[in-house]
């Protein structure tokens, strides 16, 4: 909250002035890559609890056979299409938390996504804006670049609503000083002359912005060569991951990148090791693996979080699919992640059917409030103090999950 005393104001200005000229974007910023699996991902078939008989009993045709799955621990195995991500788990960079979720009982995609993106719960204290938007707004003064937050796609995700600067782009080429006359050299020269002659903070920020633009434009207009043999899939998720990697490499002050992957609402013919969901998993795993390989030289600079609005029922339905459930497996990747483990209790607790005692659809019991996980991801990646955490998720005392 702003206090309007003269002294506070002056000290604020003085503080703020310092990092302004220190070329903020060039700093070693860490990037949080937020992947949202839209539609309610059946994570039980991604992180297969192959040691659990109940899983096989309730899913006679949809379960991933233990012989087909990629064995990780004595409890869990990965879906065969997750193969590209196996090594990340073995290196201890990919981790998961079982039975995470939002307490919304409606089973509505819209409501659960909305709550999760705003950082709300059914009985909690709602706060305005998206949770990432609020976070960036908390830090609006000291760390800011026009490219602090980028959403890949065509619409602003709710999680970034309220952010001080957010760009919705499909490609890196969308970030440009657009010169309708086509004479971009003359325009940049003129801007440089005008802002360079301005001795105030504004002039300094203008020059920095031009510098940033110069670095972006150096990347544009030519075919991007990925490194370390990374091959991005030709789908839109793959190209989105490629654009994120390019932004990250260029050190443009990117703090949050949001990207969606849809197609997880598998009520009909979900498939098992092959089929509808397997194709989605392939897209996800290949896209993530390409980014991770491409950014091998930048390993300390990013954390990927993968979430969805809810998991699905444990049992399969009559049309060989699964219906909306509750808890899901949250995933995170990065050097700061305490990977190589799936957190959460065992055996997995679930309701076989719609529970008459607790409202809402059955599925995995919510063991961990998603907000504790999100807060921990922020703490471990971009940094989040206790005081900030309270502002971010009002009424929540942050609890360590152990993932970061």
């Amino acid at each position, binding site marked *: 909250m702003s206090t309007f005393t003269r002294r506070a104001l002056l000290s604020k200005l003085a503080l703020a002035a310092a990092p302004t000229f220190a070329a903020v974007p060039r700093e070693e910023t860490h990037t949080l890559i937020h992947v949202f699996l839209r539609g309610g991902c059946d994570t039980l078939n991604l992180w297969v609890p192959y040691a659990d008989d109940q899983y096989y009993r309730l899913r006679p045709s949809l379960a991933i056979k233990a012989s087909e799955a990629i064995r990780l621990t004595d409890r869990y195995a990965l879906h065969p299409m997750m193969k590209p991500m196996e090594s990340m788990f073995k290196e201890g960079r990919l981790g998961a938390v079982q039975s995470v979720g939002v307490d919304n009982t409606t089973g509505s995609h819209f409501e659960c996504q909305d709550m999760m993106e705003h950082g709300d719960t059914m009985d909690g204290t709602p706060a305005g804006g998206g949770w990432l938007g609020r976070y960036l707004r908390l830090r609006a003064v000291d760390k800011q670049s*026009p490219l602090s937050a980028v959403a890949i796609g065509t619409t602003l995700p709710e999680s970034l609503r309220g952010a*001080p600067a957010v760009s919705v782009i499909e490609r890196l080429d969308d970030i440009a000083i657009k010169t309708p006359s086509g004479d971009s050299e003359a325009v940049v020269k003129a801007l440089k002359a005008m802002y360079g002659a301005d001795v105030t903070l504004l002039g300094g920020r203008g020059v920095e912005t031009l510098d940033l633009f110069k670095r972006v434009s150096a990347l544009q207009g030519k075919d991007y060569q990925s490194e370390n043999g990374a091959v991005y899939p030709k789908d839109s998720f793959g190209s989105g991951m490629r654009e994120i990697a390019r932004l990250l490499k260029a050190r443009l002050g990117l703090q949050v990148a949001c990207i969606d992957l849809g197609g997880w609402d598998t009520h009909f013919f979900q498939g098992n090791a092959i089929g509808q969901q397997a194709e989605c998993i392939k897209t996800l795993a290949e896209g993530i693996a390409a980014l991770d390989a491409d950014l091998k030289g930048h390993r300390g600079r990013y954390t990927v979080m993968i979430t969805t609005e809810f998991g699905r029922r444990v049992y399969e339905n009559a049309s060989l699919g699964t219906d909306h459930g509750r808890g899901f497996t949250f995933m995170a990747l990065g050097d700061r992640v305490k990977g190589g483990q799936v957190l959460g209790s065992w055996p997995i607790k679930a309701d076989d059917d719609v529970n008459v005692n607790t409202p809402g659809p059955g599925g995995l019991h919510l063991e961990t409030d998603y907000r504790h996980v999100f807060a921990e991801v922020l703490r471990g990646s971009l940094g989040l103090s206790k005081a900030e955490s309270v502002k971010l998720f009002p009424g929540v005392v942050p609890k360590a999950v152990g993932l970061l």
Partner: protein
Amino acid sequence: MQTTRRSLLKATTLSFSAAALAGCDRVITQVNREFFGEGLPSKLILPTSVEIDPEFHLLSRAAFGSWPGDVQRVKKMGREKWIEEQLNPGSISDTACDLRAEQFESLYFSAGDAYEFRKPVLREEITRHAMLRAIYSRRQLFEVMVEFWTDHLNIDLEKGDCIYLKPSDDRDVIRKHALGNFHDLIRASATSPAMLVYLDGKANKVRRKTDDKPNENYARELMELHTMGASGGYTQDDVREAARCLSGWTFDRNRFFAMNQSESFFKPDWHDDGEKRVLGQVIPAKGGESDLDRLVDIVCSHTSTANFLALKLCRRFVSEIPPENLVKRVAAEFTRTHGDIKCVLRLLLNSEEFIASRGQLLKRPLKFMVSAMRALAADTQAEKSVLEPLQRMGHGFFQYPTPDGYTDDELPWMGTLMWRWNFGMALAAGKQPGVRVNVYELGKALGNGKAANHVAYFSHLVGRCPTEAEITALGDGDEKQTVGLILAGPAFQRC
């Protein structure tokens, strides 16, 4: 703002004909240009000084920048008279703006009835309305104050049900009292359904059963943000006592058979009817719903409130660190008039400090965009494509997440200059989707029949003559590029 039945009907008729006639927007534009003076004057007189023209300055602060011809009009009638006229918005005919901005149906509904609309429709209509009013209203000072109070009594559309409730808050709280009395404004805001939801007042009830709890959120923000300021001298006890006064005011759209179903209401059995003591003043027991009036009166009349509001107004209208002497005088006027907003603004805008502060403020993105469109006599219906750049610059309407509202600090706004440059250059080149401008015609008016030069464009847009260096920096592109660069340059970011 009168939204009479007649004007509603008129607007409805117009929007129906819009559906029937393709290109009705163009018809409105034509009508506005022909009959309501929305066009370009044939000749514009330019400032000749190296200092920002005082009338241009007034229009940059007490308005969202000047429309071509405005500066001459203010000079002709005299600045004091112009300020008086603006302080009485009812006396100014705003037909041209109404033709554009009265088409949004959802803005006429009560809080409870707005639930009939889908969220995207509500978001689009209230946002477009705000943008169109800022660009086209002749009641510019009124619109500037609407923006000020919208920040001061911030409500984020995305929290809870606020999106359904903000339209009536905008109409019945902000716009109704924007130039009225501060006490009335706060009283209206306290029981606005949107505010009851946004700051959880609707859940504030007396502690009787174990699960009943008072909710102090609104009581705290009422003192910290809306009236006295964080260092205003109230205590935690005052917050708790204020929450007791407020208990029982709630909003519930699911009450059937209630006459005032779609409004907020007072629930006596939720109210704590004991004696309270707020800021040293006793509110006797059994006050019922009148406790609220007493509370509003006590906090609004407090010296800290006058000081807090004076500083905030001076920061918005004068400079980021305003002269202390001015803040003191504005606060004294606030106290003397019991929060008469017109009197306070009159003193502020006529002060020497105000005139002396020329060029000291940074335009926030909204003012940057609107002043650019006004200066070029732009024609727009404020569709999504026009609101998108504002979002990129971090200043989307009704989207600030926390109750303190968009800031008047300058630094946080300097991170999005690239999007300002792109908007300015696209606008001048006629490439900004959803906006039509005619730089050629503007040039003719500025050049007195001949083509205008760099100096003329610069003087028109910035309100003063450019320096040699500024002319050189602009280079020798065509007129569209020149205008675009001036809009993108540092001088135009200030006001």
